[in-house]
């Protein structure tokens, strides 16, 4: 009992100090808003008060997953030679980027510009982390971007992120495998595909009809959204204030997805999009939904990929079909070095540098000048780009809303639970719908 009293006194001391400590922690919260006043950019030598005019000696650019590192280094060297500004390059992992940038933003320690995801655009603008790009770049560059790219990256009329790597995803089929089981026409709707899936699935021989993701917090939706859209539902409804998937159509879409799971490679609980890519390129699965990266990887390894065919996404019951567009962006942060950062990005977004990265990775260019300068992009036989560019008209992008990470997680969890049989499709959609609605009203 005595020890207990002693412990309580210690606890009480903690609590009292919590009250005192609380007052001092207020300052921490105003950091993001007052970012302009704190000294930014790791090596800037200027007066931190003014945000606009600054003599910048070096800036930091972050790329993700080492993307384009080779060309980035080259570009940085030549940029320095031309302008005298040093560009420090960093690379973060894709999956940790969001956490990292938020923590850095909180501490007032952000890089000057970085490769990020379009879903951050709105949120970062409202939090005051980024700056509008329209005024910082030249007219030429602005007009170089395609209309849909600009739309995804704009909030209202202003451009708040620079369109960067874009990929469009469609269906890929292993036509050789299909022919093996006697199927000569590639399915065009989900129903058709489901009907032939049973023939394509033979677990003891290690063959499956499909490979998907149901578990990974981000990639689950990459695989599920196209089906959701094909069935006529969406993440948000038309008003944008409530969820758009807790309805008949959404439930039907989820039911289809859950049904397909029995014909899919059984690693969907732990898989991410790269696992699905791997499953397809090693010919375990006969079909999957992605961009040309898998084929690009095969090409790089010098292997034959003629057994693969790219088709438009499968359609839902009323014939709707959509490709998933993934837009990665370059963001300029409010660190005081934005002019230098914009100059760097403008230097980088040219066919000789970023264009090469787009070409090598099997992504789709969104700048006109790239199409003109790099022949592979307009080559009809180039299976990496041509089929996907054609799908641009039916491409939908993931919404850019502020609490996207949470919305994504709620939806992904619902999909996962339905696929694994923990909840029925209706229950799963209902739970997620409720959670998303609550979130949107905050």
């Amino acid at each position, binding site marked *: 009992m005595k020890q207990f009293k002693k412990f309580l006194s210690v606890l009480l001391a903690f609590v009292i100090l*919590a009250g005192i400590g609380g007052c001092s922690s207020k300052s921490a919260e105003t950091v993001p808003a007052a970012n302009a006043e704190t000294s930014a950019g790791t090596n800037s030598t200027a007066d931190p008060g003014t945000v606009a005019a600054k003599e910048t000696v070096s800036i930091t650019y972050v790329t993700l997953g080492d993307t384009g590192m080779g060309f980035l280094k080259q570009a940085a060297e030549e940029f320095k030679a031309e302008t005298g500004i040093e560009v420090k390059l960093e690379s973060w992992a894709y999956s940790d980027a969001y956490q990292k940038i938020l923590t850095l933003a909180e501490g007032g320690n952000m890089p000057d510009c970085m490769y990020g995801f379009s879903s951050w655009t709105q949120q970062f603008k409202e939090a005051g982390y980024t700056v509008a790009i329209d005024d910082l770049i030249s007219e030429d560059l602005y007009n170089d971007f395609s209309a849909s790219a600009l739309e995804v990256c704009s909030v209202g009329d202003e451009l708040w992120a620079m369109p960067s790597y874009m990929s469009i995803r469609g269906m890929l089929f292993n036509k050789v495998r299909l022919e093996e089981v006697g199927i000569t026409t590639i399915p065009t709707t989900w129903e058709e595909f489901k009907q032939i899936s049973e023939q394509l699935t033979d677990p003891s021989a290690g063959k499956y009809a499909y490979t998907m993701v149901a*578990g990974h*917090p981000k990639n689950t939706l990459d695989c599920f959204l196209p089906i959701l859209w094909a069935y006529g539902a969406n993440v948000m409804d038309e008003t944008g204030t409530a969820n758009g998937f807790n309805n008949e159509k959404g439930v039907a879409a989820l039911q289809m997805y859950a049904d397909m799971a029995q014909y899919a490679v*059984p690693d969907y*609980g*732990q898989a991410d999009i790269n696992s699905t890519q791997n499953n397809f390129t090693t010919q375990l699965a006969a079909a999957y939904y992605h961009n040309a990266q898998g084929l690009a990887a095969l090409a790089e390894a010098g292997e034959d990929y003629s057994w693969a065919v790219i088709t438009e996404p499968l359609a839902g019951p009323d014939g709707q079909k959509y490709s998933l567009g993934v837009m990665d962006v370059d963001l300029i942060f409010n660190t005081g070095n934005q002019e230098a950062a914009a100059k760097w990005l403008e230097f980088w977004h040219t066919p000789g540098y970023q264009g090469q990265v787009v070409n090598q990775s099997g992504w789709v260019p969104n700048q006109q000048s790239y199409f003109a300068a790099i022949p592979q992009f307009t080559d009809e036989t180039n299976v990496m780009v041509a089929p996907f560019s054609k799908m641009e008209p039916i491409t939908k992008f993931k919404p850019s809303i502020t609490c996207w990470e949470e919305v994504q*997680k709620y939806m992904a969890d619902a999909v*996962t639970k339905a696929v694994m049989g923990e909840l029925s499709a209706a229950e799963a959609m209902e739970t997620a719908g409720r959670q998303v609605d609550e979130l949107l009203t905050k």
Partner: protein
Amino acid sequence: MNGLAKRERREKIVNLIYILPMLIIFVTFILYPITQVFYMSFFERKINGDMVFVGLGNFVSLFTSPDTPRMFQNTFVWVVVGVFFKLLLGLGLALVLYRKFLGKRVMTAIMLIPYAMPAAVSCMIWRLMYNPMFGHIIQFLRDLHILDRPGDFLGNTRTSLIAVMIVNIWAVTPFCALNILSTMYSIPTYIYEAAKIDGASGMQQFFFITFPLITSSLRTLGLLIGIWAFNTFDVIYMVTQGGPANSSSIMVNFIYQNAFQFNNRGYSAAISVVSFLILSVFAVVYINSKGEDTRYE
């Protein structure tokens, strides 16, 4: 008489210097951040980044969220069931290794390897082994004809927690075994000899001699690894990131997820406060048990 008391009092003050650096570290890096966390738990982060006072709002959300029961359940299972098996298997291991036999030194060394391996490394290996198509574990089960097709333990919402628990139990059991062993060594052998002369069998020796004497040490050990288990973030994160749909997440995972992935600082702080309170209960029990031990010495 007076001079002695004065010197004593002065010494009592001066001696504080010995613990001063330690106190500075604690206050700066533990106390101060904790108070900030407590403070933050009463706020919510609005969409545009402002922090708004919501009183107990976060706590209400926490207790009404559909994910919360699973979170508590997972944490409970992870800690209680985990500790149970770690102690049980550790005890078993210690009993096997108690007697002298050829290669005992080597065995003890081998036994420590799971504990010595960095968590990151063992998590990676287990992840590979759990792979449904190419993993060693599934292959093993198929060879034994327990499974007839590839299955996924890690990626299944029902079994992911258990799968990660196996990894954790595998790593911590040797540590428990070692602790129990060292306690067992401190029991003088003449007691066993006397019992043998009296005709006690091995089982009786265990239940009436060994077990009672190591009970208090087991209890302290159990508390210690219980607290470690409660706080374990690395293992779960590196193996499943919290499992498909948070099925293998315990409280610390939710804290991390809300703070870093959703940027919900206030809500994360609220979960932290609840964790803190739960841990405090542990702490009280721990202190009481420690108190008994020290008096015994």
